[in-house]
C-alpha cells in the first residue's frame, strides 16, 4: 500500500480524508485504484491529474514505478506556456 496525499477539493470524494492508502506499484495502478475505490473522484481523474512521486512530477507514464515508501501527492494537471 502507498500513502497518497490528495488536494483539498478532492477530499469530498474521500469522505474528507486528505491521505488515503492505495495498493499500487505503478502510476497506472494508482490512478485505477483511486477511481475504483473513490468513484466520486473519477470526473477529476478523467479531466486529468499530475502526480508527484518523491518530489518529481508525472502525468502520463503509466508504468512509472511507485515504491511503498514513496511520497505520492496528487496534483492538478500541470499546464504551461
Amino acid at each position, binding site marked *: 500500500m502507498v500513502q497518497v*496525499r490528495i*488536494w*483539498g*477539493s478532492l*477530499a*469530498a470524494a474521500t469522505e474528507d480524508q*486528505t491521505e488515503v492508502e492505495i495498493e499500487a506499484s505503478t502510476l497506472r495502478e494508482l490512478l485505477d485504484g483511486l477511481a475504483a475505490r473513490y468513484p*466520486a473522484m473519477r*470526473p*477529476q481523474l478523467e*479531466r486529468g491529474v*499530475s502526480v*508527484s512521486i*518523491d*518530489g*518529481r*512530477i*508525472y*502525468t*502520463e*507514464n503509466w508504468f*512509472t514505478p511507485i515504491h511503498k515508501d514513496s*511520497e505520492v*501527492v*496528487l*496534483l*492538478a494537471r*500541470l*499546464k*504551461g*506556456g
Partner: protein
Amino acid sequence: MALDSKSELREFKIVGTRPLRPDGIDKVTGKARFGADITAPGMLVGLVLRSPHAHARIVSIDTSRAEAVPGVHAVVTRADFAEPGEDVADILDNCMAGAKALYDGHAVAAIAASSGKIARDALKLIDVVYEVLPHVTDVDAAMKPGAPVLHEGRTDETVPEGLSPNVISRHEFGHGDIEAGLAQADRIVERTFQTEATHQGYIEPHACLAQMGPDGQADLWCCTQGHYMARNVCAEILGLEQGQLRVTASEIGGGFGGKTTVFLEPVALMLARKSGRPVKMVMTRSEVLRATGPTASSSIDVKIGMTKDGRITAGFAELRYQGGAYPGSPVDMGSMSAFAPYDLEHVKTIGWDVVTNRPKQAAYRAPGAPMAAFAVESAIDELARGFGLDPLEVRLKNAAREGTRASYGPTYPAIGLEATLRTAKDHPHWSAPLGENQGRGVACGFWFNFGGDTCVTLNITPDGTVTVSEGNPDIGGSRASMSMMAAEELGIPYEKVRTIVADTGSLGQNEVTDGSRVTFAVGLATIEAARAAIREMCKRAAMVWGIEPEAVEWVDGAAQPAGPNAGEHPPMTLAEIAAIASNTGGPIAGHHEANPEGAGVSFATHMVDTEVDPDTGAVKILRYTVFQDAGKAIHPAYVEGQFQGGAVQGIGWALNEEYIYGEDGVLQNAGFLDYRVPVASDLPMIDTVILEIPNPGHPYGVRGVGETSIVPPLAAVANAVSAASGVRMTSLPISPPKLLAALHER
C-alpha cells in the same frame, strides 16, 4: 528513462558557452520565413467576420449575397463543421461560433476570395441576425447570482450549489490549520488584489496557409508553438486522419504560451476544402487582441499572519480567475503556486474558475502564477515593512528548502530559492543608494516544469556534419541549445551541427513547446540520440578494426580502442566513420523517442528600483536584476534573454498593460497604440544572475527557464512603487492616473 545525477561533476566544452545563434542572420536580414511569408500557387485570401457584440444569440446567417460576389470562392460558417468531439468542442466553438457569439470579436463566418479587397467587401455582405444578450466581463460580477449566464451545465462537481452557472470549478490546496496559524501572528494583513487581463504581445500575428486535395490529403503551414497539436486538433475538427494532414511550423515571432492552441487553422482548412484552393489567413493586430487568448484577469483575497521577527504563521488566499468564455482559467495553477516559495505550517488556497464574455484565455508564461505571486508577495512585503524588517531577510527566514513540504503538497528535493535570495542579498544592487521618490522592491516566484512526448532524430551526413531534427518550434533558442548538446555529446564543434524543426510527417508525436519543457525534454532526447549514434559509430569502427564493439570507446569526437587489450588502432573521427558509412552498413543516425517526465521546479528572486513622479503618477524603472536558478545554462545568453524577457513582460503587466472593456462589453484598446507594452526606451538594461543548482532529472542538470521569470515582477514592481511612494497599490496595472489618484487619497 535512466536519470543521471552526475551533471555537477562533468566538465563541459561547449555547453555553457555563447556561440552565435543559428537564426540570427535570417532574422536581422528579413529572410526568415514567418507564418505570413508562406505562399502557394493559386492561393486565396481568407478573412473572418467577427461579432460586434459581447454576448448574442446568432439567430441566422445568410451568406448568399457574399457567395455571389465574383472572386469569392468559399464561405464558411459553423454549419460547415460536423459536431465536434468533446475534447475539441470548445476549441472549435472559439474558432467559429455556434449558437451564440460569446465575446466581442468572436468569429461567426469566414470567406476565401481571390484578393483581400474582394474578401473584405464580401464580408460586409454576410447578413447575421443577432439577438443581443446581457453580458458580463468582470470576474467578481460574473460569480454573482443573477449575472448574465454564458453556458448552462458546465459547472463541475467541485462547485457548491447556489452559485452562478458561470462558476465552473473550485480548487483547494494546502495543509495545517489557518485559524490556528493566524492566532500565532503578531500582525495580520488582509487585502484584496486585482489584475487585469494582459496579452502575450508577440510581434507576429497568427498566420497560416492551408491546402487540401480532393483525396483528403492536406498540408498546413502555420506559426505555432506546437504543430503536432495543430495537426491533431485540426484533424479531429475536420474529420481527417492525422497521418493525412502534414503541418509545418514556420519561424515564430513570439508565442509565450499564446500559440499553444489554434484560432485560424481549422477555418483555413475548411475554406481550402470548400474552395479546392490554398487559403492563406493572417490576423490583424486588432484581431489578435480581440480574438486570441490573453491571460485571465483575477481578483484575489489574501490573508497572511506574521510574527514580529518575520516568521509567517499562516497564509490564505482565495483566487478568482476569469478565463474568458470557456472553462479552463489557470486558477488551479495559481492556487498551487501562490505560496510555493515558502515553508509554511498553515497554508490554504481556494481557486475559482469563472467564465465571462471575453476571449478564451490562453497560456501566458507560467499561466496563473504571476497574479497569485502579486497578491502574496505584496502582502508579505507589507508585513515585513510594517515590522521594519528587511524584506529579503523575511523571505530567507521563510524560504522553502530541500525537505520543505510545498504548499501544494509534495516535499521539495534540492531547490534553488535560498540561493537566489542569498545571491540577491549579496549583490551590489541591494545596497545601492536611492534618491527622492525612489524605492526598491523584491519578490520571489515559482514555477513548475514538465516533459511530455518528445522525438529527436540525429543524422550523421557523409561529410561528417550532423543534422538534428526536433519537433518543437524554436521560441527561445532551442535550435542553438540542441546543437550545443549534440556537439557536446559527439565531441565535435558546434558549427558542425545544424538543428531543424521538422514537420509532422518526419517525427513521431511531440508535445507543444510549453511548460519550459524543451531544453529539458528535447535536450534530453537529443543527448540520448547522440549517444545512440555514438554507439553505432563505435560499432562501425569495431568492424573496421576487427574487434568487439564493447572494446571501443568514444573520446573527443572519435572512436578509439578502449584499452590495450583492444589492440593498437589510431582513433577514427566522426568524419572518417561517416565517410565510409556506405561500406560499413549504410547511413548512421541516432534517434530517441520518450516522454521524459520528472522535471524539477524553478525559483527566482527579482529586485527592482522605481521612481514615482508625484505630479503625474508615472513610474520609471531605474534598475532591475533577476536572480534565477537555471539548473545548468546551456547557452547563457539565451537564458539571460529568457530572464530579461519575462521581467519586461511582467513590468508591462504591472505598469501599463490591460484589456479595457466598455460598458457595451467591447474591447476599447485593440491596438498597440492603446494597449501599451513597454518598449526599449522605457526600460533600463535588465541585469541577470544565473544560478546553477543542477536538476538531477537531466543528464546535464537542466531546468526549464522560460516561465519563472514572469512570476515575480508584478509584485516586485508594486513593492518598489510602495517603497517609493508610501502607497500600497493592490490593483494592476499601476497606470499613472490610478497611482496619481492613490497619491491624492493618501
